[in-house]
């Protein structure tokens, strides 16, 4: 039947889609379990979006302040996420992060050190103690390079032992997966194309790990690389799984605002962690006006105390610049709206008056570089202009916390930014890199265990599935429309940016959904011109469908949630409401549109309730939940 479809065929035990932190860690684990593993990525090996991560990876090692421990980290994570987090994920994450960081050292990572030679840890928003393991401001690069080199070292051993470096671990770089294949309800493999040639590729595999990262490219102003087109989110939806809590999108408070071509590029939170302050056009440190009730006892309400904190953290409350990201982003948004913004529509972030020039260059080398080269600003002398930028999606594939198995699709796993639940309604800085390691490892182990249990009962790839994948992949060439994928992408980004952005309301969200529907119709007319070989227009035509699905999922979940919480702010429902905390939104694909299914969120178990003061829990949980007590 498939005689006229040309494709190459590979067979693996586990296919990992994504070579960011999560994918690499998953691959290492599955290989160590003795399986044959493929790593697939859209870019060259070692370029995944994770290389951009700057500030650090959060892990309660207690190297700088030995009061830190997993319970404190767990507490901070739940607080940051406004208790909507999947508590089991937050618990595993807090407990396992230190081991995941230490393990990287044994693979060659070189983190910055404390005076006594241990891994140094830095302060970050929402973390009670200095907690982020880091390498200057290029921590993501260190993670990627370390695991990339770990994979090379495993391949070198395989070459020695088995005579073939790629016998157990093979990297397929610049290959895009467009379809998850199934045999009944189980995963049987995946299908895609080489970007270089446009040639089609079939992977037969009983387990597929999604580690495809984020969705930022659906928004106009974003810190994300081009890879962030939500492919994994869309693949999971279409494979019959569900996404959880997609309304929660993190706008990082500090992206560059000028020049226009770099708008959105991240200014790391370490600038604030290392003493940078935010001021408005009147020169006021405005963050003191935006400390929410729930955080009053943790954050300084005056400059003197805030300044003392950098020297003495035991006896002073932290500066409000270090509030969780959602709070700071909204504050900046309000200042600009109130006319107190900088001339180019941001606010000022200044570290030049806080640290000596050489100290700034040592601690924040890439920031210094970035502003010098892209904006002609010397941050050791001048303030930066910053504003919110779409940075991270908290929502993602609903997974089992312990095994990373995706909801309702046996053989599908998800880890890293593409997975949901861990961060609740708002992620703390530094908690993503550690999340990648903890759940990347768990996904690799989960997939390995699943494959071993299947034994020889492997699902088969049918000709029909291949034909379906082939025809979908070729649509941009075969249809006869004339829409330009670049122009449509632009329109999509405007809709999400303007109508599904930081501050939302019913009217705009409904409006957005209508507009998305019309863009979707036109996207079905997108025609790729030119040939199959390395043709970005063709690539974008396919990515566009994913971005549309993701945007619809975000807009529908956002419309359904009638409250404000973390990365979801409704000006028509400005308050956080404990009744809404009991609900998670599941996005499912009906074949025609995304549908939202409200599901009950779980209560903390008794032993974790004890980590908190009752007064704090009262702010988040309903009376009925608290009366009933822990699970």
């Amino acid at each position, binding site marked *: 039947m498939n005689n006229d479809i040309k494709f190459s065929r590979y067979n693996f035990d586990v296919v990992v889609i994504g070579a960011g932190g999560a994918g690499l860690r998953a691959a290492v684990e599955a290989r160590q379990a003795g399986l044959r593993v493929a790593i697939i990525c859209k*870019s*060259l*090996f070692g*370029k995944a*979006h994770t*290389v*951009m991560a700057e500030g650090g990876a959060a892990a309660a*090692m207690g190297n700088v302040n030995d009061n830190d421990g997993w319970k404190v980290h767990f507490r901070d994570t739940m607080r940051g996420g406004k208790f909507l987090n999947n508590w089991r994920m937050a618990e595993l994450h807090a407990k396992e992060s230190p*081991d995941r960081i*230490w393990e990287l*050292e*044994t693979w*060659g990572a*070189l*983190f*910055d*050190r404390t005076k006594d*030679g*241990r891994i140094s840890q830095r302060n970050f928003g929402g973390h009670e103690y200095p907690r982020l393991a880091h*390498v*200057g401001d*290029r921590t993501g*690069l260190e993670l990627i390079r370390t695991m990339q*080199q*770990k994979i*090379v*070292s495993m*391949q*070198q051993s395989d*070459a020695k032992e088995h005579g073939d*470096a790629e016998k157990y671990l093979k990297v397929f770089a610049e290959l895009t997966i467009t379809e998850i294949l199934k045999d009944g309800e189980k995963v049987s493999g995946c299908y895609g194309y080489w970007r*270089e040639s446009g040639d089609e590729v079939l992977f037969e595999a009983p387990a597929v790990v999604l580690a495809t990262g984020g969705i930022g490219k659906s928004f106009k102003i974003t810190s994300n*690389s*081009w*890879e962030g087109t939500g492919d994994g989110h869309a693949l999971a939806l279409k494979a019959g799984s569900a996404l959880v809590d997609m309304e929660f999108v993190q706008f990082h408070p500090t992206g560059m605002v*000028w*020049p*226009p*071509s*770099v708008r959105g*590029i*991240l200014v790391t939170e370490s600038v604030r962690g290392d003493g940078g302050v935010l001021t408005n056009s009147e020169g006021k440190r405005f963050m003191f006006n935006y400390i929410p009730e729930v955080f009053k006892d943790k954050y300084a309400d005056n400059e003197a105390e805030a300044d003392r904190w950098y020297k003495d953290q035991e006896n002073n409350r932290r500066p409000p610049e270090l509030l969780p990201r959602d709070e700071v982003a909204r504050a900046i948004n309000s200042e600009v709206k109130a006319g107190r913004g900088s001339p180019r529509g941001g606010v000022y972030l200044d570290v030049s008056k806080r640290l000596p020039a050489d100290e700034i260059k040592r601690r924040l080398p*890439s920031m210094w570089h*970035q502003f010098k*080269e*892209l*904006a002609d600003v010397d941050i050791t002398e001048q303030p930066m202009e910053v504003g919110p930028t779409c940075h991270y999606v908290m929502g993602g594939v609903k997974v089992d916390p312990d095994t990373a198995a995706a909801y309702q699709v046996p053989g599908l796993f998800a880890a890293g930014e593409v997975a949901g639940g861990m961060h609740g309604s708002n992620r703390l800085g530094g908690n993503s890199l550690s999340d990648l390691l903890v759940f990347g490892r768990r996904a690799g182990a989960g997939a390995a265990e699943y494959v071993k249990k299947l034994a020889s009962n492997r699902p088969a790839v049918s000709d029909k599935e291949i034909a379906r994948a082939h025809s979908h992949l070729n649509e941009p060439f075969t249809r006869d429309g004339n829409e*330009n*994928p*670049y*122009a449509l992408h632009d329109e999509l980004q405007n809709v999400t940016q303007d109508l599904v952005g930081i501050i939302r309301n019913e009217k705009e969200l409904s409006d957005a959904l209508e507009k998305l529907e019309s863009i979707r119709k036109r996207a079905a007319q997108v025609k*790729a*011109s*030119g*040939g199959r*070989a*390395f*043709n*970005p*227009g063709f690539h974008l035509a396919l990515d566009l469908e994913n971005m549309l699905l993701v945007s619809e999922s975000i807009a529908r979940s956002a419309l359904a949630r009638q409250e404000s919480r973390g990365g979801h702010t409704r000006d028509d429902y400005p308050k956080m409401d404990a009744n809404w905390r009991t609900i998670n939104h599941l996005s499912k694909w009906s074949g025609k549109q995304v549908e939202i299914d409200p599901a009950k969120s779980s209560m903390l178990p008794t032993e974790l309730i004890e980590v908190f003061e009752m007064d704090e829990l009262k702010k988040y949980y309903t009376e009925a939940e608290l009366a009933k007590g822990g699970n």
Partner: protein
Amino acid sequence: MSRKVKLRIWRGDAKEGKLEDVSVEANEGEVVLDVIHRVQGTQMPDLAVRWNCKAGKCGSCSMEINGKPRLACMTRMNTFAEDETITVTPLRAFPVIRDLVTDVSYNYRKAMEIPSFAAPEDLKPGEYRMAQVDVERSQEFRKCIECFLCQDTCHVIRDHEENKKSFAGPRFFIRIAELDMHPLDRLRNRKQKAQEEHGLGMCNITKCCTEVCPEHIKITDNAIIPMKERVVDVKYDPIRWLGSKIRKREGIV
């Protein structure tokens, strides 16, 4: 504040290709990659170009701009004269795939040839102790974003395909130096191997690699020259202890 600029872009594949002239809008503050994207969005939808972060962090957008190896996302348009025609061509040291995209697999093959970090056997995870001053030297080399601009510019392989077999190139000399200076790495003959197996001897210290490195890594001064100097000195000090906790191996400077 937009203006028209003239670009001459190499288009083609492994078999043939030619420079094509285009005129396109450029706005204030833009970089070459922005302008290439505008060409792609409005005139040449299938123009092949690699990029990823657009922030100088991933090393994907390497190409030659007016003959110089550069990152397109970090090359500001205002560094050119208003009426200058900007020529963009693929990296010359590597085979062309299409347009501005080259086959850089040589570099990944070389990475496979360098022996990996050999972890100390007597330390468990969490027990590593290293002083900041001791890790800093290796950290400089770990800043490398693998843009391969240094590889592209190095005359040993730029026009000498035949040398590629025996020459790892500056990117991998710093990788060797990085491991060699790692306070806890156990392998002791890295410099020797660099000389004997990875072609360090073919480098005649022209420093062109250092000049193009977007991360400003001092490839020659801090990695190549010290290795070359010490390679002749075959004495290796055994592991020695500094204080009770922090240990470090005899480095190369």
